[in-house]
């Protein structure tokens, strides 16, 4: 930088140079990449160390860039600083003959010359590192909730506060969960690698499941902060995209999951009105659905059709595709949706899926058949505190003009709902049902 040091000598004010702009979420994204690469160097047992070094590098960027000088290649800058911090750390560990087995071991095998060190940071390797990290975070030895939390922390660069806000849990509880997850990984002495051979399919399933949960966490219309929630959906799509772009993850099931996410995300913004009120599918403005995402989703759905396996993701993506391609609510292919639900329920006996299926049955065979289908839901006791069970029953009774029963069910749903938008929605419905009843 040729102007360095002479800022006081300038006669006039500094010219207005082209200051590079930071792409959105650059810090978060780079954090995820670099944590993964540093973990390759320091070993999975030192995950916390890698996270700390990245935090340090980002703080350095914050301090230096706040004075009007953002480098031309901000991502490269952060990576370089993290690299230097890592190298310092390795030299220090070397010097003090650290007891950390993994670092000492690494040092024995690799000379600490800069060229060797640089080769650890090749773009291709960095991509593989993120996949290695995905498989590590979503290792079956961790509970699904821990998998999602750890993925968000290490690969997506979210802070404990941000994750806890999205999950509506306390920071302390989430922090504890992460500490335990890292500890489990350390104790299991897991290798930092992409699984191969027979090990791959179950491990890939585990990753896909975690990504699915991550997406759902963002998608479900719950309170929380809507911006954070949208970010969760976007991150799930980004990570699934990384997976699908890699030979190991490029499988029909991964495409199906990605299709499902894209087709759902396309409708994300239309689910509430300007005041934040919940809008039903039939009330949504279909012209506002994101046609780009729908096109991408349909493309991945086509790619998902390779092979014989029909996974749960295939079926759910198929259902989403029916909605996305229908011109309006009435012309939706409900028969096809019902047949997809029939297949889905054969794989997954979840009472929530059964409830959704009952709604479709009502659409095809009428409200009476829908109510009968709800009554037949196995394990119904599992959803007896779920407000949607009563909201669905209320809606079906209202369609039969039985407003007395409808009102009773809406009242029950209202008692069980937990978020403001849900309560507003149900109160609105209850009011109109009660009005009809009075007539």
């Amino acid at each position, binding site marked *: 930088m040729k102007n360095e040091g002479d800022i006081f000598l300038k006669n006039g004010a500094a010219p*207005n140079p082209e200051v590079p702009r930071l792409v959105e979420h*650059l810090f978060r994204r780079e*954090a995820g990449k670099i944590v993964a690469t540093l973990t390759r160097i320091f070993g999975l047992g030192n995950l916390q160390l890698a996270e700390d070094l990245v935090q340090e590098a980002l703080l350095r960027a914050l*301090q230096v*860039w*706040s*004075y009007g000088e953002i480098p031309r290649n901000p991502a490269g800058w952060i990576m370089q600083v993290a690299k230097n911090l890592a190298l310092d750390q390795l030299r220090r560990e070397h010097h003090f003959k650290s007891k950390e087995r993994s670092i000492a071991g690494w040092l024995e095998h690799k000379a600490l010359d800069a060229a060797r060190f640089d080769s650890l940071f090749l773009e291709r390797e960095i991509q593989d590192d993120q996949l290695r990290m995905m498989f590590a975070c979503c290792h079956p030895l961790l509970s699904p909730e821990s998998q999602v939390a750890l993925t968000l922390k290490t690969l997506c660069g979210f802070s404990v*506060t941000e994750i806890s806000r999205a999950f509506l849990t306390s920071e302390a509880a989430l922090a504890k969960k992460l500490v335990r997850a890292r500890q489990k990984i350390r104790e299991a002495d897991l290798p930092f690698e992409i699984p191969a051979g027979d090990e791959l399919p179950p491990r890939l399933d585990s990753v896909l499941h975690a990504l699915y949960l991550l997406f759902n966490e963002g998608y479900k219309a719950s309170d929380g902060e809507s911006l954070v929630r949208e970010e969760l959906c976007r991150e799930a799509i980004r990570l699934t995209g990384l997976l699908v772009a890699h030979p190991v993850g490029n499988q029909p099931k991964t495409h199906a999951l990605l299709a499902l996410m894209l087709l759902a995300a396309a409708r994300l913004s239309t689910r509430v009105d300007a005041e934040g009120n919940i809008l039903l599918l039939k009330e949504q403005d279909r012209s506002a659905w994101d046609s780009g995402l729908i096109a991408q989703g349909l493309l991945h759905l086509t790619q998902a059709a390779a092979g014989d396996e029909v996974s749960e993701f295939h079926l759910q993506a198929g259902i989403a595709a029916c909605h996305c391609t229908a011109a309006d609510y009435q012309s939706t292919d409900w028969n096809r949706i019902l047949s997809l639900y029939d297949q889905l329920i054969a794989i997954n006996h979840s009472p929530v899926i059964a409830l959704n299926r009952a709604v479709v049955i009502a659409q095809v065979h009428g409200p009476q058949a829908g109510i009968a289908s709800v009554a037949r839901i196995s394990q119904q006791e599992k959803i007896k505190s779920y407000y949607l069970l009563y909201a669905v029953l209320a809606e079906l009774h209202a369609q039969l003009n039985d407003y007395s029963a409808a009102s009773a069910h809406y009242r029950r749903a209202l008692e069980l709902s937990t978020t403001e938008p849900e309560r507003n929605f149900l109160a609105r419905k209850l009011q109109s049902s009660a009005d009809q009843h009075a007539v």
Partner: protein
Amino acid sequence: MTNESSAKDFILLFRGGVSRKDMSPEQMQQIVKQYTEWIDGQRSRGQFLGGKPLEEEGQVVAGKNGQMVTDGPFMESKEIIVGFVMIRVADRTEAVEIAKGCPILNLGGTVEIRPVLTSLHHDSA
């Protein structure tokens, strides 16, 4: 816009601000963005002369002929100067207005405004 004859230089000294722990990457990026916008504003008005962050630790040289060289300065972190910006504006009022927009104020830090002493300029504001 300021003209050379009436312009006056000020140094803005920043103390405290960013705390290390528990800031998320996203928050850090937001802060960089706020600073960038703040400085862009000064640039577009031709007021920005330059600025730099400072490392928190250094050496203090004291005593006759610098007999005493110690690490430091040791003080509370909110007292440590973390950086500075130099601006050229019409008067003190304008400098204060610029300082009021500094993102550090929302991060628990402070801005100290010090006019550069010159024999030619008088700040009557």
